[in-house]
Protein backbone atom coordinates (compact mmCIF):
# COMPACT_ATOMS: atom_id res chain seq x y z
CA UNK A 1 0.00 0.00 0.00
CA UNK A 2 1.10 3.52 -0.77
CA UNK A 3 2.75 4.96 2.33
CA UNK A 4 1.50 8.47 1.59
CA UNK A 5 -2.05 7.31 1.14
CA UNK A 6 -1.78 5.56 4.50
CA UNK A 7 -0.40 8.79 5.93
CA UNK A 8 -3.38 10.70 4.56
CA UNK A 9 -5.84 8.17 5.95
CA UNK A 10 -4.25 8.28 9.42
CA UNK A 11 -4.22 12.07 9.29
CA UNK A 12 -7.89 11.91 8.40
CA UNK A 13 -8.68 9.82 11.46
CA UNK A 14 -6.72 12.17 13.70
CA UNK A 15 -8.42 15.26 12.24
CA UNK A 16 -11.74 13.49 12.64
CA UNK A 17 -11.22 13.27 16.39
CA UNK A 18 -11.05 17.05 16.81
CA UNK A 19 -13.88 17.67 14.35
CA UNK A 20 -15.97 15.14 16.23
CA UNK A 21 -15.40 17.02 19.47
CA UNK A 22 -16.51 20.28 17.85
CA UNK A 23 -19.52 18.65 16.27
CA UNK A 24 -20.42 17.17 19.64
CA UNK A 25 -20.55 20.57 21.33
CA UNK A 26 -22.58 22.12 18.55
CA UNK A 27 -24.91 19.14 18.47
CA UNK A 28 -25.48 19.31 22.19
CA UNK A 29 -26.53 22.95 21.94
CA UNK A 30 -28.71 22.32 18.95
CA UNK A 31 -30.34 19.26 20.42
CA UNK A 32 -31.13 20.88 23.75
CA UNK A 33 -31.71 24.58 23.03
CA UNK A 34 -32.75 24.15 19.39
CA UNK A 35 -30.43 26.95 18.29
CA UNK A 36 -27.52 26.80 15.86
CA UNK A 37 -24.51 28.76 17.08
CA UNK A 38 -23.01 29.79 13.79
CA UNK A 39 -20.17 31.47 15.70
CA UNK A 40 -19.13 28.23 17.39
CA UNK A 41 -15.77 28.05 15.63
CA UNK A 42 -15.13 31.64 16.71
CA UNK A 43 -15.44 30.57 20.34
CA UNK A 44 -12.66 28.10 19.61
CA UNK A 45 -10.62 30.94 18.15
CA UNK A 46 -11.08 32.88 21.42
CA UNK A 47 -9.83 29.89 23.37
CA UNK A 48 -6.79 29.56 21.12
CA UNK A 49 -5.91 33.23 21.59
CA UNK A 50 -6.36 32.93 25.35
CA UNK A 51 -3.92 30.02 25.50
CA UNK A 52 -1.50 31.78 23.19
CA UNK A 53 -1.42 34.91 25.34
CA UNK A 54 -1.29 33.19 28.69
CA UNK A 55 1.47 30.88 27.51
CA UNK A 56 3.78 33.15 25.49
CA UNK A 57 3.09 36.49 27.15
CA UNK A 58 2.50 35.73 30.80
CA UNK A 59 4.55 32.52 30.73
CA UNK A 60 1.92 30.48 32.44
CA UNK A 61 2.38 26.72 32.33
CA UNK A 62 0.61 25.32 29.28
CA UNK A 63 -1.67 23.05 31.26
CA UNK A 64 -2.88 25.88 33.48
CA UNK A 65 -3.44 28.09 30.41
CA UNK A 66 -5.53 25.33 28.89
CA UNK A 67 -7.66 24.94 32.00
CA UNK A 68 -8.22 28.70 32.15
CA UNK A 69 -9.13 28.70 28.45
CA UNK A 70 -11.67 25.92 28.91
CA UNK A 71 -13.29 27.73 31.85
CA UNK A 72 -13.13 31.06 30.00
CA UNK A 73 -14.82 29.76 26.88
CA UNK A 74 -17.42 27.98 29.00
CA UNK A 75 -18.19 31.33 30.61
CA UNK A 76 -18.32 32.88 27.16
CA UNK A 77 -20.86 30.22 26.21
CA UNK A 78 -23.03 31.23 29.16
CA UNK A 79 -22.73 34.88 28.14
CA UNK A 80 -23.68 34.06 24.56
CA UNK A 81 -26.81 32.39 25.83
CA UNK A 82 -27.72 35.15 28.26
CA UNK A 83 -27.02 38.12 26.01
CA UNK A 84 -27.82 36.87 22.52
CA UNK A 85 -29.85 33.70 22.51
CA UNK A 86 -32.29 34.41 25.33
CA UNK A 87 -33.74 37.59 23.77
CA UNK A 88 -34.42 35.78 20.49
CA UNK A 89 -35.59 32.40 21.83
CA UNK A 90 -39.14 33.19 20.75
CA UNK A 91 -38.25 34.61 17.32
CA UNK A 92 -38.17 32.63 14.07
CA UNK A 93 -35.24 30.15 13.98
CA UNK A 94 -33.56 32.07 11.19
CA UNK A 95 -33.24 35.13 13.45
CA UNK A 96 -31.39 33.04 16.01
CA UNK A 97 -29.04 31.89 13.29
CA UNK A 98 -28.49 35.50 12.27
CA UNK A 99 -27.95 36.78 15.80
CA UNK A 100 -25.08 34.35 16.31
CA UNK A 101 -23.91 35.31 12.81
CA UNK A 102 -23.55 38.86 14.14
CA UNK A 103 -21.50 37.41 16.98
CA UNK A 104 -19.26 35.78 14.37
CA UNK A 105 -18.57 39.17 12.79
CA UNK A 106 -18.02 40.71 16.19
CA UNK A 107 -15.55 38.13 17.46
CA UNK A 108 -13.57 38.04 14.21
CA UNK A 109 -13.25 41.81 14.10
CA UNK A 110 -12.51 42.09 17.79
CA UNK A 111 -9.69 39.58 17.38
CA UNK A 112 -8.37 41.57 14.42
CA UNK A 113 -8.55 44.74 16.49
CA UNK A 114 -6.81 43.25 19.50
CA UNK A 115 -4.24 40.97 17.92
CA UNK A 116 -3.92 42.06 14.29
CA UNK A 117 -4.08 39.64 11.40
CA UNK A 118 -0.74 37.96 12.13
CA UNK A 119 -0.54 34.20 12.32
CA UNK A 120 0.65 33.23 15.78
CA UNK A 121 1.75 29.93 17.24
CA UNK A 122 3.01 28.68 20.56
CA UNK A 123 6.45 27.94 19.18
CA UNK A 124 6.26 24.46 20.61
CA UNK A 125 7.62 21.58 18.60
CA UNK A 126 6.05 18.35 19.64
CA UNK A 127 8.00 15.34 18.39
CA UNK A 128 7.09 13.17 15.41
CA UNK A 129 6.55 9.52 16.19
CA UNK A 130 8.22 7.40 13.54
CA UNK A 131 8.07 3.79 12.54
CA UNK A 132 10.35 3.39 9.53
CA UNK A 133 8.94 5.51 6.71
CA UNK A 134 5.72 6.11 8.54
CA UNK A 135 5.36 9.04 10.89
CA UNK A 136 2.61 10.57 12.99
CA UNK A 137 2.61 14.00 14.55
CA UNK A 138 2.48 13.61 18.34
CA UNK A 139 0.31 16.72 18.62
CA UNK A 140 -2.30 15.17 16.40
CA UNK A 141 -2.21 11.84 18.18
CA UNK A 142 -2.59 13.63 21.49
CA UNK A 143 -5.48 15.69 20.12
CA UNK A 144 -7.18 12.58 18.81
CA UNK A 145 -6.83 10.72 22.09
CA UNK A 146 -7.98 13.71 24.12
CA UNK A 147 -10.96 14.23 21.82
CA UNK A 148 -12.01 10.61 22.31
CA UNK A 149 -11.63 10.91 26.08
CA UNK A 150 -13.63 14.16 26.04
CA UNK A 151 -16.39 12.61 23.97
CA UNK A 152 -16.48 9.59 26.28
CA UNK A 153 -16.67 11.79 29.36
CA UNK A 154 -19.55 13.74 27.85
CA UNK A 155 -21.35 10.53 27.01
CA UNK A 156 -20.98 9.27 30.58
CA UNK A 157 -22.13 12.61 31.95
CA UNK A 158 -25.22 12.67 29.78
CA UNK A 159 -26.22 9.08 30.46
CA UNK A 160 -25.13 8.53 34.08
CA UNK A 161 -25.65 11.81 35.94
CA UNK A 162 -28.92 13.40 37.02
CA UNK A 163 -28.13 16.69 35.30
CA UNK A 164 -27.18 14.86 32.10
CA UNK A 165 -30.45 12.95 32.17
CA UNK A 166 -32.35 16.20 32.68
CA UNK A 167 -30.54 17.70 29.69
CA UNK A 168 -31.46 14.76 27.50
CA UNK A 169 -35.01 14.84 28.74
CA UNK A 170 -35.50 18.51 28.01
CA UNK A 171 -34.28 17.91 24.46
CA UNK A 172 -37.16 15.47 24.08
CA UNK A 173 -39.96 17.46 25.64
CA UNK A 174 -39.67 21.04 26.77
CA UNK A 175 -43.09 21.46 28.38
CA UNK A 176 -43.22 18.30 30.44
CA UNK A 177 -39.80 18.87 31.99
CA UNK A 178 -41.01 22.14 33.44
CA UNK A 179 -43.85 20.27 35.12
CA UNK A 180 -41.35 17.78 36.50
CA UNK A 181 -39.69 20.60 38.39
CA UNK A 182 -36.69 21.11 36.14
CA UNK A 183 -35.88 24.73 35.38
CA UNK A 184 -35.55 25.10 31.63
CA UNK A 185 -33.42 28.19 31.98
CA UNK A 186 -30.94 26.46 34.27
CA UNK A 187 -30.62 23.53 31.90
CA UNK A 188 -30.08 25.88 28.96
CA UNK A 189 -27.36 27.73 30.83
CA UNK A 190 -25.66 24.49 31.87
CA UNK A 191 -25.81 23.24 28.30
CA UNK A 192 -24.33 26.49 26.98
CA UNK A 193 -21.53 26.20 29.52
CA UNK A 194 -20.79 22.62 28.50
CA UNK A 195 -20.95 23.55 24.81
CA UNK A 196 -18.57 26.43 25.45
CA UNK A 197 -16.34 24.19 27.53
CA UNK A 198 -16.12 21.70 24.66
CA UNK A 199 -15.14 24.54 22.32
CA UNK A 200 -12.48 25.54 24.83
CA UNK A 201 -11.26 21.97 25.02
CA UNK A 202 -11.07 21.80 21.23
CA UNK A 203 -9.09 25.04 21.20
CA UNK A 204 -6.46 23.45 23.50
CA UNK A 205 -6.04 20.62 21.01
CA UNK A 206 -6.03 22.83 17.93
CA UNK A 207 -3.58 25.39 19.25
CA UNK A 208 -0.94 22.66 19.36
CA UNK A 209 -1.29 22.01 15.63
CA UNK A 210 -2.37 25.20 13.94
CA UNK A 211 -1.41 28.86 13.95
CA UNK A 212 -4.09 31.08 15.38
CA UNK A 213 -5.41 34.09 13.45
CA UNK A 214 -8.71 35.99 13.55
CA UNK A 215 -10.23 34.10 10.63
CA UNK A 216 -9.26 30.58 11.62
CA UNK A 217 -12.92 29.90 12.41
CA UNK A 218 -13.76 30.20 8.72
CA UNK A 219 -11.54 27.24 7.91
CA UNK A 220 -13.30 24.70 10.12
CA UNK A 221 -16.56 26.40 11.14
CA UNK A 222 -18.59 25.59 8.02
CA UNK A 223 -17.36 21.99 7.94
CA UNK A 224 -18.48 21.53 11.55
CA UNK A 225 -22.05 22.51 10.68
CA UNK A 226 -22.03 20.17 7.74
CA UNK A 227 -20.87 17.37 10.04
CA UNK A 228 -23.64 18.06 12.54
CA UNK A 229 -26.29 18.05 9.87
CA UNK A 230 -24.81 15.00 8.20
CA UNK A 231 -25.00 13.12 11.46
CA UNK A 232 -28.50 14.43 12.04
CA UNK A 233 -28.73 17.66 14.03
CA UNK A 234 -28.96 16.76 17.68
CA UNK A 235 -27.84 13.17 17.09
CA UNK A 236 -24.47 12.88 18.78
CA UNK A 237 -23.41 9.42 17.69
CA UNK A 238 -24.34 10.26 14.11
CA UNK A 239 -22.28 13.46 14.34
CA UNK A 240 -19.37 11.45 15.69
CA UNK A 241 -19.41 9.07 12.72
CA UNK A 242 -19.99 11.89 10.23
CA UNK A 243 -16.90 13.69 11.56
CA UNK A 244 -14.73 10.75 10.58
CA UNK A 245 -16.41 10.35 7.19
CA UNK A 246 -15.86 14.04 6.39
CA UNK A 247 -12.28 14.09 7.64
CA UNK A 248 -11.44 11.04 5.52
CA UNK A 249 -12.90 12.72 2.44
CA UNK A 250 -10.86 15.81 3.18
CA UNK A 251 -7.54 14.12 3.73
CA UNK A 252 -7.82 11.37 1.10
CA UNK A 253 -9.25 13.91 -1.36
CA UNK A 254 -6.38 16.22 -0.50
CA UNK A 255 -3.98 13.39 -1.30
CA UNK A 256 -5.43 12.68 -4.74
CA UNK A 257 -6.40 16.23 -5.72
CA UNK A 258 -5.78 19.52 -3.93
CA UNK A 259 -6.89 20.43 -0.42
CA UNK A 260 -9.45 22.96 -1.70
CA UNK A 261 -10.88 20.39 -4.03
CA UNK A 262 -11.24 17.89 -1.22
CA UNK A 263 -13.28 20.46 0.72
CA UNK A 264 -15.38 21.04 -2.40
CA UNK A 265 -16.05 17.28 -2.44
CA UNK A 266 -17.01 17.33 1.24
CA UNK A 267 -19.45 20.21 0.72
CA UNK A 268 -20.94 18.61 -2.38
CA UNK A 269 -21.42 15.38 -0.44
CA UNK A 270 -23.18 17.41 2.22
CA UNK A 271 -25.55 19.00 -0.31
CA UNK A 272 -26.38 15.63 -1.84
CA UNK A 273 -26.87 14.05 1.59
CA UNK A 274 -29.34 16.77 2.62
CA UNK A 275 -31.42 15.86 -0.40
CA UNK A 276 -31.12 12.12 0.01
CA UNK A 277 -31.13 11.72 3.79
CA UNK A 278 -32.13 15.00 5.46
CA UNK A 279 -32.55 13.21 8.80
CA UNK A 280 -28.83 12.38 8.86
CA UNK A 281 -26.95 9.14 8.37
CA UNK A 282 -28.27 7.57 11.56
CA UNK A 283 -31.69 9.20 11.51
CA UNK A 284 -34.84 7.13 11.41
Amino acid at each position, binding site marked *: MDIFLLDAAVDGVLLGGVLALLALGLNLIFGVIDVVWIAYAELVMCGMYAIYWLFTFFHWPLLLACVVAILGVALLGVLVHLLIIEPVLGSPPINQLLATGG*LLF*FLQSLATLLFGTDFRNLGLRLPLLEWGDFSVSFARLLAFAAALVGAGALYLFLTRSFLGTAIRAIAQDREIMGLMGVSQRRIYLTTSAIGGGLAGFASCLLVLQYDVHPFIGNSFGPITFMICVLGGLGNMIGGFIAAFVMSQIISIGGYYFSIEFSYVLAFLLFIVMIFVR*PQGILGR
Partner: protein
Amino acid sequence: MTLARLTGVAALALLALLPFAASDYMLHIAIQILIWGFIYTAWSMMGRFGLTSFGHGAFLGVGAYVPALLWNFCGLTPWLGIPAGAALAVALALVIGYPSFRLRVVGHYFALVTLALSQVVLLSLVAARDLTGGSLGMTLKTVGHSWYALQFAQKSYFYEIAFVVWLGGLAVWRWIDRGIARTALDAISEDETAAAASGIDVTREKLRVTVVSAGLTALGGSLLTQYIQYVNPETVSGVAVSLQIVFAAIAGGMHVLLGPTVGALFTIVLNEALRIVFGIHFIGAANTIYGILLILFIIFMPRGIVGLAEEVFARTVRRPRAALDAPATRV
Protein backbone atom coordinates in the same frame (compact mmCIF):
# COMPACT_ATOMS: atom_id res chain seq x y z
CA MET B 1 -50.17 60.87 -3.99
CA THR B 2 -49.16 63.14 -6.88
CA LEU B 3 -47.04 65.16 -4.49
CA ALA B 4 -45.30 62.00 -3.32
CA ARG B 5 -44.75 60.95 -6.93
CA LEU B 6 -43.36 64.35 -7.87
CA THR B 7 -40.94 64.28 -4.97
CA GLY B 8 -39.86 60.80 -6.07
CA VAL B 9 -39.18 61.90 -9.63
CA ALA B 10 -37.32 64.99 -8.44
CA ALA B 11 -35.19 62.89 -6.10
CA LEU B 12 -34.37 60.47 -8.91
CA ALA B 13 -33.43 63.34 -11.25
CA LEU B 14 -31.16 64.78 -8.57
CA LEU B 15 -29.57 61.36 -8.06
CA ALA B 16 -29.01 60.99 -11.82
CA LEU B 17 -27.26 64.37 -11.89
CA LEU B 18 -25.03 63.57 -8.91
CA PRO B 19 -21.81 63.11 -10.98
CA PHE B 20 -21.88 66.83 -11.89
CA ALA B 21 -21.78 67.84 -8.25
CA ALA B 22 -19.87 65.18 -6.34
CA SER B 23 -16.17 64.60 -5.92
CA ASP B 24 -14.55 61.38 -7.15
CA TYR B 25 -14.50 60.02 -3.61
CA MET B 26 -18.19 60.69 -3.06
CA LEU B 27 -18.95 59.18 -6.42
CA HIS B 28 -16.96 56.07 -5.52
CA ILE B 29 -19.02 55.64 -2.35
CA ALA B 30 -22.23 56.30 -4.28
CA ILE B 31 -21.40 53.69 -6.92
CA GLN B 32 -20.70 51.11 -4.24
CA ILE B 33 -23.95 51.90 -2.49
CA LEU B 34 -25.88 51.53 -5.74
CA ILE B 35 -24.27 48.24 -6.77
CA TRP B 36 -24.48 46.66 -3.32
CA GLY B 37 -27.97 48.09 -2.87
CA PHE B 38 -28.91 46.32 -6.09
CA ILE B 39 -27.40 43.04 -4.84
CA TYR B 40 -29.15 43.31 -1.46
CA THR B 41 -32.42 44.09 -3.23
CA ALA B 42 -31.95 40.95 -5.32
CA TRP B 43 -31.37 38.91 -2.16
CA SER B 44 -34.42 40.33 -0.42
CA MET B 45 -36.64 39.16 -3.29
CA MET B 46 -36.18 35.68 -1.80
CA GLY B 47 -35.40 36.61 1.76
CA ARG B 48 -38.69 38.35 2.43
CA PHE B 49 -40.55 35.13 1.71
CA GLY B 50 -38.63 33.13 4.27
CA LEU B 51 -36.19 31.76 1.71
CA THR B 52 -33.14 32.80 3.70
CA SER B 53 -30.24 32.06 1.41
CA PHE B 54 -26.77 32.05 2.93
CA GLY B 55 -25.39 31.26 -0.49
CA HIS B 56 -25.73 34.39 -2.54
CA GLY B 57 -21.95 34.58 -2.44
CA ALA B 58 -22.07 31.69 -4.92
CA PHE B 59 -24.13 33.62 -7.46
CA LEU B 60 -22.16 36.78 -6.85
CA GLY B 61 -18.88 34.91 -7.36
CA VAL B 62 -20.04 33.31 -10.60
CA GLY B 63 -21.28 36.66 -11.88
CA ALA B 64 -18.03 38.36 -10.96
CA TYR B 65 -15.68 35.75 -12.37
CA VAL B 66 -17.31 34.48 -15.56
CA PRO B 67 -17.22 37.75 -17.55
CA ALA B 68 -13.74 38.53 -16.20
CA LEU B 69 -12.37 35.12 -17.25
CA LEU B 70 -14.05 35.30 -20.66
CA TRP B 71 -12.62 38.76 -21.22
CA ASN B 72 -9.09 37.98 -20.05
CA PHE B 73 -8.71 34.64 -21.79
CA CYS B 74 -11.02 34.76 -24.81
CA GLY B 75 -11.30 38.50 -25.35
CA LEU B 76 -15.07 38.16 -25.21
CA THR B 77 -16.85 41.43 -24.53
CA PRO B 78 -18.60 41.75 -21.15
CA TRP B 79 -21.77 42.50 -23.09
CA LEU B 80 -21.83 38.75 -23.76
CA GLY B 81 -19.81 37.71 -20.72
CA ILE B 82 -22.23 39.21 -18.20
CA PRO B 83 -25.27 37.35 -19.59
CA ALA B 84 -23.14 34.19 -19.64
CA GLY B 85 -22.30 34.68 -15.97
CA ALA B 86 -25.92 35.36 -15.09
CA ALA B 87 -26.99 32.28 -17.05
CA LEU B 88 -24.51 30.12 -15.14
CA ALA B 89 -25.72 31.55 -11.83
CA VAL B 90 -29.31 30.80 -12.85
CA ALA B 91 -28.31 27.25 -13.75
CA LEU B 92 -26.65 26.87 -10.36
CA ALA B 93 -29.78 28.23 -8.67
CA LEU B 94 -31.88 25.66 -10.54
CA VAL B 95 -29.57 22.79 -9.64
CA ILE B 96 -29.69 23.69 -5.94
CA GLY B 97 -33.18 25.14 -5.85
CA TYR B 98 -35.16 22.42 -7.58
CA PRO B 99 -34.24 19.55 -5.23
CA SER B 100 -34.37 21.88 -2.21
CA PHE B 101 -37.90 23.02 -2.93
CA ARG B 102 -39.07 19.69 -4.21
CA LEU B 103 -37.81 17.89 -1.11
CA ARG B 104 -38.89 20.69 1.20
CA VAL B 105 -35.50 21.71 2.48
CA VAL B 106 -36.47 24.79 4.49
CA GLY B 107 -35.28 27.02 7.34
CA HIS B 108 -31.94 26.03 8.87
CA TYR B 109 -31.42 23.32 6.33
CA PHE B 110 -31.94 25.59 3.34
CA ALA B 111 -29.57 28.14 4.89
CA LEU B 112 -26.92 25.45 5.36
CA VAL B 113 -27.34 23.98 1.85
CA THR B 114 -26.86 27.41 0.32
CA LEU B 115 -23.98 28.09 2.70
CA ALA B 116 -22.31 24.92 1.43
CA LEU B 117 -22.92 26.07 -2.14
CA SER B 118 -21.18 29.38 -1.54
CA GLN B 119 -18.22 27.52 -0.01
CA VAL B 120 -18.11 25.23 -3.06
CA VAL B 121 -17.87 28.23 -5.37
CA LEU B 122 -15.26 29.95 -3.18
CA LEU B 123 -13.05 26.88 -2.93
CA SER B 124 -13.42 26.07 -6.62
CA LEU B 125 -12.29 29.58 -7.51
CA VAL B 126 -9.28 29.21 -5.20
CA ALA B 127 -8.52 25.70 -6.45
CA ALA B 128 -8.55 26.78 -10.11
CA ARG B 129 -5.64 29.07 -9.37
CA ASP B 130 -4.02 28.54 -12.78
CA LEU B 131 -6.98 30.38 -14.31
CA THR B 132 -8.25 32.62 -11.55
CA GLY B 133 -5.05 33.47 -9.71
CA GLY B 134 -6.39 31.77 -6.59
CA SER B 135 -6.57 33.82 -3.41
CA LEU B 136 -4.41 36.51 -4.96
CA GLY B 137 -7.28 37.49 -7.17
CA MET B 138 -7.30 38.57 -10.77
CA THR B 139 -6.96 41.89 -12.56
CA LEU B 140 -8.97 42.67 -15.66
CA LYS B 141 -6.97 43.41 -18.80
CA THR B 142 -7.43 47.14 -19.17
CA VAL B 143 -7.93 48.91 -22.47
CA GLY B 144 -8.76 52.41 -21.27
CA HIS B 145 -12.05 54.06 -22.11
CA SER B 146 -14.16 51.58 -24.06
CA TRP B 147 -17.85 50.76 -24.28
CA TYR B 148 -16.94 47.44 -25.87
CA ALA B 149 -14.94 46.40 -22.81
CA LEU B 150 -17.20 48.27 -20.39
CA GLN B 151 -14.22 50.06 -18.93
CA PHE B 152 -14.21 53.75 -18.22
CA ALA B 153 -11.61 56.09 -16.83
CA GLN B 154 -14.24 58.42 -15.42
CA LYS B 155 -16.40 57.31 -12.54
CA SER B 156 -19.43 59.19 -13.84
CA TYR B 157 -20.03 56.57 -16.55
CA PHE B 158 -20.10 53.83 -13.99
CA TYR B 159 -22.28 55.84 -11.75
CA GLU B 160 -24.93 56.18 -14.46
CA ILE B 161 -24.73 52.48 -15.34
CA ALA B 162 -25.03 51.48 -11.69
CA PHE B 163 -27.91 53.92 -11.28
CA VAL B 164 -29.86 52.45 -14.19
CA VAL B 165 -29.21 48.89 -13.03
CA TRP B 166 -30.26 49.76 -9.49
CA LEU B 167 -33.49 51.30 -10.78
CA GLY B 168 -34.04 48.13 -12.79
CA GLY B 169 -33.58 46.09 -9.64
CA LEU B 170 -36.16 48.17 -7.80
CA ALA B 171 -38.53 47.76 -10.73
CA VAL B 172 -38.19 43.96 -10.58
CA TRP B 173 -38.74 44.03 -6.83
CA ARG B 174 -41.90 46.06 -7.35
CA TRP B 175 -43.06 43.79 -10.17
CA ILE B 176 -42.79 40.78 -7.83
CA ASP B 177 -44.40 42.75 -5.01
CA ARG B 178 -47.43 43.67 -7.14
CA GLY B 179 -47.76 40.33 -8.91
CA ILE B 180 -49.91 37.34 -8.12
CA ALA B 181 -46.75 35.40 -7.26
CA ARG B 182 -46.34 37.55 -4.18
CA THR B 183 -49.61 36.35 -2.71
CA ALA B 184 -48.61 32.78 -3.46
CA LEU B 185 -45.17 33.20 -1.92
CA ASP B 186 -46.62 34.89 1.14
CA ALA B 187 -48.96 31.96 1.57
CA ILE B 188 -46.07 29.53 1.17
CA SER B 189 -43.97 31.29 3.78
CA GLU B 190 -46.93 31.19 6.18
CA ASP B 191 -47.75 27.52 5.72
CA GLU B 192 -46.34 25.42 2.94
CA THR B 193 -48.75 22.53 3.30
CA ALA B 194 -51.80 24.77 3.30
CA ALA B 195 -50.48 26.65 0.27
CA ALA B 196 -49.92 23.44 -1.64
CA ALA B 197 -53.38 22.21 -0.63
CA SER B 198 -54.97 25.35 -2.03
CA GLY B 199 -53.48 24.71 -5.43
CA ILE B 200 -50.23 26.66 -5.37
CA ASP B 201 -47.34 24.99 -7.16
CA VAL B 202 -44.89 25.54 -4.30
CA THR B 203 -41.78 24.33 -6.12
CA ARG B 204 -42.45 26.45 -9.19
CA GLU B 205 -43.21 29.65 -7.31
CA LYS B 206 -40.12 29.36 -5.14
CA LEU B 207 -37.95 28.41 -8.08
CA ARG B 208 -39.06 31.40 -10.12
CA VAL B 209 -38.20 33.94 -7.47
CA THR B 210 -34.92 32.15 -6.72
CA VAL B 211 -33.88 32.23 -10.38
CA VAL B 212 -34.63 35.94 -10.67
CA SER B 213 -32.76 36.66 -7.46
CA ALA B 214 -29.71 34.60 -8.49
CA GLY B 215 -29.52 36.12 -11.97
CA LEU B 216 -29.69 39.67 -10.66
CA THR B 217 -27.12 38.94 -7.96
CA ALA B 218 -24.76 37.66 -10.65
CA LEU B 219 -25.32 40.85 -12.64
CA GLY B 220 -24.39 42.86 -9.55
CA GLY B 221 -21.22 40.79 -9.19
CA SER B 222 -20.27 41.48 -12.82
CA LEU B 223 -20.74 45.20 -12.29
CA LEU B 224 -18.49 45.13 -9.23
CA THR B 225 -15.71 43.49 -11.22
CA GLN B 226 -16.11 45.85 -14.15
CA TYR B 227 -15.96 48.81 -11.83
CA ILE B 228 -13.06 47.81 -9.61
CA GLN B 229 -11.31 45.92 -12.45
CA TYR B 230 -10.04 43.45 -9.90
CA VAL B 231 -11.71 40.45 -8.38
CA ASN B 232 -10.81 38.30 -5.41
CA PRO B 233 -12.53 35.06 -4.34
CA GLU B 234 -12.93 36.16 -0.71
CA THR B 235 -14.68 39.41 -1.53
CA VAL B 236 -17.27 37.98 -3.92
CA SER B 237 -17.91 34.43 -2.67
CA GLY B 238 -17.92 32.29 0.42
CA VAL B 239 -19.45 32.60 3.86
CA ALA B 240 -18.30 36.10 4.72
CA VAL B 241 -19.86 37.90 1.77
CA SER B 242 -22.99 35.75 1.93
CA LEU B 243 -23.52 36.79 5.54
CA GLN B 244 -22.75 40.39 4.63
CA ILE B 245 -25.55 40.32 2.07
CA VAL B 246 -28.03 38.80 4.51
CA PHE B 247 -27.19 41.28 7.25
CA ALA B 248 -27.26 44.43 5.19
CA ALA B 249 -30.59 43.50 3.65
CA ILE B 250 -32.07 42.74 7.06
CA ALA B 251 -30.57 45.85 8.68
CA GLY B 252 -32.20 48.01 6.02
CA GLY B 253 -35.46 46.11 6.05
CA MET B 254 -36.15 43.37 3.52
CA HIS B 255 -39.90 43.81 3.43
CA VAL B 256 -39.87 47.28 1.87
CA LEU B 257 -38.75 48.51 -1.52
CA LEU B 258 -35.93 50.79 -0.42
CA GLY B 259 -34.97 48.73 2.62
CA PRO B 260 -32.03 46.82 1.12
CA THR B 261 -30.68 50.01 -0.47
CA VAL B 262 -30.87 51.76 2.88
CA GLY B 263 -29.05 48.73 4.27
CA ALA B 264 -26.26 49.29 1.73
CA LEU B 265 -26.19 53.01 2.47
CA PHE B 266 -26.11 52.38 6.20
CA THR B 267 -23.40 49.71 6.17
CA ILE B 268 -21.12 51.41 3.64
CA VAL B 269 -21.38 54.88 5.17
CA LEU B 270 -20.95 53.45 8.66
CA ASN B 271 -17.89 51.54 7.51
CA GLU B 272 -16.37 54.60 5.86
CA ALA B 273 -17.14 56.81 8.85
CA LEU B 274 -15.65 54.34 11.31
CA ARG B 275 -12.64 53.95 9.05
CA ILE B 276 -12.11 57.70 9.04
CA VAL B 277 -12.61 57.96 12.79
CA PHE B 278 -10.35 55.08 13.70
CA GLY B 279 -7.90 55.41 10.83
CA ILE B 280 -5.67 52.50 9.90
CA HIS B 281 -4.35 51.99 13.41
CA PHE B 282 -7.39 50.13 14.58
CA ILE B 283 -8.08 47.62 11.84
CA GLY B 284 -11.20 45.75 12.84
CA ALA B 285 -12.65 48.49 15.06
CA ALA B 286 -15.19 49.38 12.40
CA ASN B 287 -16.32 45.79 11.98
CA THR B 288 -16.43 45.21 15.72
CA ILE B 289 -18.99 47.97 16.08
CA TYR B 290 -20.76 46.71 12.98
CA GLY B 291 -21.01 43.24 14.55
CA ILE B 292 -22.52 44.61 17.75
CA LEU B 293 -25.01 46.65 15.74
CA LEU B 294 -26.01 43.55 13.78
CA ILE B 295 -26.78 41.63 16.95
CA LEU B 296 -28.78 44.57 18.31
CA PHE B 297 -30.66 44.87 15.03
CA ILE B 298 -31.67 41.23 15.02
CA ILE B 299 -32.79 41.38 18.65
CA PHE B 300 -34.52 44.75 18.77
CA MET B 301 -35.61 45.63 15.24
CA PRO B 302 -35.83 42.52 13.06
CA ARG B 303 -37.80 44.48 10.46
CA GLY B 304 -34.86 46.77 9.77
CA ILE B 305 -34.39 50.52 9.60
CA VAL B 306 -36.97 51.24 6.92
CA GLY B 307 -39.36 48.68 8.36
CA LEU B 308 -39.19 50.37 11.75
CA ALA B 309 -39.54 53.85 10.24
CA GLU B 310 -42.60 52.73 8.32
CA GLU B 311 -44.13 51.20 11.43
CA VAL B 312 -43.60 54.39 13.43
CA PHE B 313 -44.93 56.49 10.54
CA ALA B 314 -48.00 54.32 10.21
CA ARG B 315 -48.70 54.49 13.93
CA THR B 316 -48.31 58.25 14.30
CA VAL B 317 -49.40 59.73 10.97
CA ARG B 318 -51.27 57.40 8.72
CA ARG B 319 -53.67 55.70 11.04
CA PRO B 320 -55.26 58.78 12.63
CA ARG B 321 -55.64 60.35 9.19
CA ALA B 322 -57.10 57.22 7.65
CA ALA B 323 -59.65 57.16 10.46
CA LEU B 324 -60.63 60.73 9.62
CA ASP B 325 -60.74 60.04 5.88
CA ALA B 326 -62.94 57.01 6.08
CA PRO B 327 -66.33 58.66 6.78
CA ALA B 328 -65.64 61.39 4.20
CA THR B 329 -65.18 58.92 1.34
CA ARG B 330 -68.41 57.16 2.21
CA VAL B 331 -70.44 60.32 1.61
